[in-house]
């Protein structure tokens, strides 16, 4: 989130879209309820009428996979009715920047942007990639982008956006989404009203937006709306991702994904053999002296990370040499992992706190791929469909050679450590009880593995041993043999924060070797500091464990609670807060100020996004969006793989033959596992296919967690939601002769699940451009391993979902695909 949970209560209009927050983030509704008590309007847009919809002032239905059309219509409404926040748009965003005249919009280019190279088919382009050279700005002599602050130049971002969205008329949008025109109008009006300088609108979104082949662009569309309306950096505004797991924010911050290193640094590539080459590639250069260009500090963070990993055992250049690199052009994400595993390219696999047999899209392929492994290590609290894949439904254990190790691990309350919530708050947790039996905390398991692997490398040599043998491992009190006795999470937290590795003087003050670094502003590029994650530098300092603070005072009045735990960066609760004030440093919304300038070189309120004076101070000031090289927020966003503006494309499996917006049916740059020589025989696609005429989506319930590995074993929760179900409209049920409570089969081109039918008025048929389209929905919490393992039941939603992903993130499109539902499921 750019803002945080409690800040929701400051909002004037809360849009919940791509989320069912009331059910799946129930505590958030404490704050939503408070906002509504103060007069906020709650809007719920969802294919299904949910618990959130039940509390909303306005509900509108929307066919899964059409969010960009809906939101682009809103942008059109905002621009044409001049409801955007004019000063904010002109001054704080790149709306005024002039774009390369060679740039083409989809409306003039068969549904794609300029620079696309790929294969043309009757569905449009496929297997394509963009040459982004036209997605660039016209430059002045000094290298700064040319601007038209009046926003009138036909090549300025603002006018290009206006032209781009002019095609998303209410009638077109309604024909694509199935949302009635009057509902569109009502919602556009109420949300656009937050464009007033003292009003704030917020968006609460979750997997309903991310799990699409246009997932990132869904969020980009909303980011554009929030910028136009001046909702970034202000209380009650922001772009707020409701993370799908209590510490997934922590896991992404600390880089448990292939493409990033801690603090969202990039994983080095083979084509970057030296630290210098790596830094040069990823350190942006600013042309405008008023741009803070905070990523210009990149080398300080990469150097400090090298020190955190290898300490003084090597130079930082050598540490970089030992750091694993990605092969250029290779994407190591989940969908590719299981594709490679299916093709027999993996011998071993750690399923660490994961249940891919149920959580992986196209789960039949995932389960099949595991049979090719020589060994698997399942680290979990309970056994699951993954650890026991070899004795699952349809498996013949005699034909499977995989050796599976179960390592029981401690649950979160059985160990000490931190959890970082969606609002970036790192909250320290204490150990409540000991883990049972042989279960151990993950840190202890990794430590034991590390020592053993290191020993094997030292005894036997092998490829690339220094990556492991030169690591430091200072996570606790060392025994005489040099090994740590117990894994101490406080030591980890301190290493993440970072240390001065030699006596260092900064701004006239001496910091002795071995002291904790106060904040990332003190990190150095020369290897004299360490930090395991620059974003978390400031979280554990000489003042103590900031994440463990429990101060309940809130002088801000807007719910910042600055003394409760710690958030990144440097405890700044609302990001981009320099955009919450005018050029004199006066808040746009004086009743809900985030920061304000008191003159005399001081900001009050939240930690300001840089302490420079307001913009009226001239060249000593900095633009508010400090993480962008030009200091201006991106309305035109050339960094994405699929376009600088969002464009509606249909999901890979869709109920329509044509995209009403253009001849380009689906996102042209997605990896098409379903096509020859790319994926496998298990990657089937069935779009606009009479065998699978129903749109299907997946979602969660309050009572279960992810694939149910923890919750299906909990009787009080299983009692509430005992089994797999499929929700469908009364009209569809009637057509199919299905009664409420009947067992049915949901099947796609990839697999089949059995579910109990919930026939409900909360799904209604969509009118999609004159055709009736039905949608159904299934939760993804169930699997055969428990509660009835002997029955070998096919209950996992991912058995039917497609393994095709967003081109930026590779997150699979599990929220929109095609199925059929038939009566009479037994197994």
């Amino acid at each position, binding site marked *: 989130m750019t803002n945080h949970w409690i800040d929701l209560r400051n909002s004037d209009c809360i849009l919940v879209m791509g989320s069912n927050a*009331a*059910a799946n983030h*129930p*505590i958030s*509704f*404490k704050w939503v*309820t408070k906002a509504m008590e103060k007069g906020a309007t709650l809007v719920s847009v969802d294919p299904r*009428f949910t*618990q*959130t*919809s*039940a*509390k909303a002032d306005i*509900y509108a*239905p929307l066919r899964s996979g059409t969010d960009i059309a809906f939101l682009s219509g809103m942008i059109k409404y905002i621009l044409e009715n001049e409801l955007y926040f004019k000063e904010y748009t002109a001054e704080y965003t790149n709306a005024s920047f002039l774009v390369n005249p060679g740039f083409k919009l989809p409306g003039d280019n068969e549904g794609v942007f300029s620079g696309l190279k790929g294969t043309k088919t009757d569905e449009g382009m496929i297997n394509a990639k963009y040459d982004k050279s036209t997605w660039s700005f016209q430059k002045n002599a000094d290298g700064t982008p040319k601007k038209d602050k009046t926003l009138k130049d036909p090549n300025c971002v603002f006018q290009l956006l206006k032209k781009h969205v002019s095609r998303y008329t209410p009638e077109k949008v309604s024909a694509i989404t199935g949302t009635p025109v009057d509902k569109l109008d009502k919602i556009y009006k109420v949300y656009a009203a937050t464009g007033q300088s003292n009003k704030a609108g917020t968006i609460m979104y979750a997997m309903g937006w991310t799990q699409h082949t246009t997932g990132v662009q869904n969020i980009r569309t909303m980011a554009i709306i929030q910028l136009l309306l001046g909702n970034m950096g202000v209380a009650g505004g922001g772009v707020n991702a409701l993370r799908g797991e209590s510490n997934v924010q922590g896991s992404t911050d600390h880089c448990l994904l292939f493409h990033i290193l801690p603090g969202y640094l990039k994983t080095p590539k083979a084509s970057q053999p030296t630290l210098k080459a790596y830094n040069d590639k990823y350190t942006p250069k600013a042309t405008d002296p008023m741009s803070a260009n905070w990523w210009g500090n990149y080398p300080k963070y990469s150097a400090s990370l090298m020190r955190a990993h290898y300490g003084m055992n090597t130079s930082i250049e050598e540490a970089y040499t030992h750091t694993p690199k990605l092969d250029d052009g290779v994407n190591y994400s989940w969908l590719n992992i299981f594709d490679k595993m299916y093709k027999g390219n993996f011998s071993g696999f750690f399923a660490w706190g994961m249940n891919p047999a149920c959580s992986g899209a196209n789960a039949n392929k995932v389960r099949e791929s595991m049979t090719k492994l020589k060994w698997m290590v399942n680290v979990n609290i309970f056994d699951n469909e993954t650890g026991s894949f070899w004795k699952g439904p349809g498996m013949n254990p005699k034909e499977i050679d995989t050796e599976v190790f179960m390592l029981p691990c401690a649950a979160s309350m059985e160990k000490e450590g931190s959890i970082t919530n969606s609002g970036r708050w790192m909250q320290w947790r204490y150990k409540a009880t000991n883990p049972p039996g042989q279960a151990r905390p993950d840190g202890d398991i990794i430590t034991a593995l590390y020592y053993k692997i290191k020993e094997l490398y030292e005894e036997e040599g092998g490829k690339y041993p220094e990556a492991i043998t030169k690591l430091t491992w200072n996570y606790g009190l060392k025994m005489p043999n040099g090994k740590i006795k117990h894994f101490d999470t406080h030591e980890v937290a301190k290493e993440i924060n970072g240390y001065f590795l030699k006596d260092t003087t900064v701004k006239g003050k001496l910091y002795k070797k071995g002291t904790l670094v106060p904040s990332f502003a003190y990190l150095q590029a020369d290897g004299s500091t360490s930090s395991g994650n620059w974003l978390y530098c400031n979280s554990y300092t000489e003042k103590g464990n900031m994440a463990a603070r429990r101060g309940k005072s809130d002088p801000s009045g807007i719910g910042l609670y600055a003394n409760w735990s710690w958030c990144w960066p440097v405890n700044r609760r609302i990001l981009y807060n320099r955009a919450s004030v005018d050029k004199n440093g006066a808040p746009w919304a004086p009743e809900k100020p985030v920061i304000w300038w008191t003159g005399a070189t001081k900001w009050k309120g939240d930690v300001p996004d840089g302490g420079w004076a307001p913009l009226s101070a001239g060249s000593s000031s900095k633009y508010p969006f400090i993480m962008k090289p030009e200091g201006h927020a991106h309305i035109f966003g050339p960094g994405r793989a699929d376009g600088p503006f969002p464009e509606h494309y249909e999901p890979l499996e869709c109920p329509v033959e044509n995209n009403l917006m253009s001849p380009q049916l689906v996102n042209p740059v997605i990896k098409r596992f379903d096509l020859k020589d790319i994926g496998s025989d298990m990657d089937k696609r069935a779009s606009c296919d009479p065998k699978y005429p129903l749109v299907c989506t997946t979602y969660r*319930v*309050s*009572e279960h967690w992810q694939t149910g590995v923890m919750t299906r074993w909990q*009787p*009080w*929760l*299983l*009692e*509430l*939601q*005992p*089994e*797999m*179900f499929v929700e469908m409209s009364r009209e569809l049920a009637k057509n199919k002769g299905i*009664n*409420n*409570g*009947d067992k049915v089969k949901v099947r796609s081109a990839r697999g089949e699940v059995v579910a*109990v*039918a*919930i*026939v*409900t*008025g*909360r799904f*209604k048929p969509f009118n999609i451009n004159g055709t009736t389209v039905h949608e159904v929905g299934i939760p993804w919490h169930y699997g055969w391993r428990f509660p009835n393992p002997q029955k070998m039941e096919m209950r996992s939603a991912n058995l039917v979902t497609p393994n095709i992903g967003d081109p930026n993130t590779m997150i699979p499109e599990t929220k929109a695909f095609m199925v059929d539902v038939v009566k009479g499921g037994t197994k």
Partner: protein
Amino acid sequence: MNEKIMLVDLSKCTACRSCQVACKSWNGLPAEITQNRGSFQNPPDLSPTTYTLIRFQELDDKENSMKWLFRNDKCFHCEDAGCMKVCPVPGCITRKPSGAIVLDSTKCIGCKYCYHACPFSIPRFDEASEKMYKCHMCHDRVEEGMIPACAKACPTGAIEFGDKAIMLKKAHARAKVLGGNANVYGDQFVGGTHVVYVLTEKPATYDGLPEKPKVSAAIGLWKDVLKPLSMISILGGIGASFAYYLIKGPKRPKFDEGGDSNEE
């Protein structure tokens, strides 16, 4: 302790079921084996091991496409408690200072009179133990200065617990703010209940919610009139006999009156 009211504001309930789980957790109640019968509602009904239940109800609605009502069902803890009135076992159903009506299942003889006397059909009979069970408004927590488990767990503040006058004031203010058909349910019948709802729809709209709940007149007649009268008559009869005995003494045969008719 002041009289308390549990205020259940249905406009804020999101049917997360924290209340159901918190109740089971606090009371150490086992989970039931359930099925999905085409609804999120589970278990399907209150039971000896389910003291509180969220009832789901879908309503078609022209304005909003539809409405989905969530009602937290449990004992209303009536001021005029039919169950307490009819219970034949002294000390089995008692009132606590908070206003809670507590059914001590260990004393229960399983006559089920309480179920029939309850206008809301709340107490539930357990076949195995032959005893009745229901919500006791966490009187053990309340007596220690804590709020009931369901109120503690509710994330949106739909369930609140506090002094009667304050909660009632809050209820009416909330109904006013909500407008439309919003109303307060619980202060106008059975002497006032200690669980009060803010409803967003009229009471008749909700499945299983009686519009004008009352303790059956027959019970009133039986307990308030016939029982006292019959007690009076029984005691009166005994008393009168005893008084006659005292005054007139025992009946003795009179020998000078001609004696036995069988005498020759």
